[in-house]
């Protein structure tokens, strides 16, 4: 059964901050993840699941609390890019970007459990393109993008391997 979880209005209001717009993206429960990595510095993190569990953020554990199929956790402590997150149950996740004050949907291993199960992961993700950018929608479908000029040489890596 396809289930979609939407962050309740009360939770959205609770997490409202200084940016001019607030947005919460709906997400199918089948696409929840148990492993994440933050790609930018953040002000806070929010997790929602349809079952109780524990989320570990950079080694610190928080409990998903709630009832009636909606369990939430908020990590108010700011963090940097490269923080590893693991959850005992699949969760929807978002971060508040520290530079832009914009909410940002997090996705991780997309239901792959355990994350090292590459064969299972390939089944879920092969031929699937993920779209990100601005306020663009977030479809999980096959696309055939037309590539523009390649960009090389401008990137670098950072982050940490602390769990």
């Amino acid at each position: 059964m396809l289930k979609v979880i939407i962050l309740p209005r009360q939770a959205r209001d609770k997490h409202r901050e200084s940016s001019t717009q607030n947005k919460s993206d709906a997400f199918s429960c089948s696409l929840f993840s148990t492993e994440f990595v933050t790609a930018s510095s953040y002000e806070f993190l929010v997790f929602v699941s349809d079952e109780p569990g524990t989320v570990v953020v950079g080694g610190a554990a928080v409990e998903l609390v709630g009832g009636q199929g909606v369990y939430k956790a908020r990590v108010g402590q700011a963090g940097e890019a490269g923080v590893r997150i693991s959850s005992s149950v699949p969760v929807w996740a978002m971060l508040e970007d520290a530079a832009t004050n914009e909410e940002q949907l997090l996705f991780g291993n997309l239901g792959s459990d355990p994350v090292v199960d590459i064969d299972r992961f390939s089944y879920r993700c092969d031929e699937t393109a993920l779209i990100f950018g601005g306020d663009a929608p977030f479809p999980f479908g096959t696309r055939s993008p037309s590539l523009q000029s390649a960009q090389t040489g401008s990137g670098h890596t950072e982050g940490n391997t602390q769990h």
Partner: protein
Amino acid sequence: MNSGVFCRLFVARAATPLPGYVASIVDGNELSLNGAVVATLNAGEVWTGEVTNGDLFSAAGPIYGAETSSVS
């Protein structure tokens, strides 16, 4: 174990080059941008650089990406 590309990230809207971030969720994850290898990332490592419309990231393992389009 299969080999090859399992995860792709497509930049849908960045008319001008914008800061982009791609993080790896597993170790030893080779990241390519438009077919050219740009980094091999361990879990928790983040590639940063500029992205623009149509850029396509690919990797053998799960990756997460975002771009920054505004600063308040």
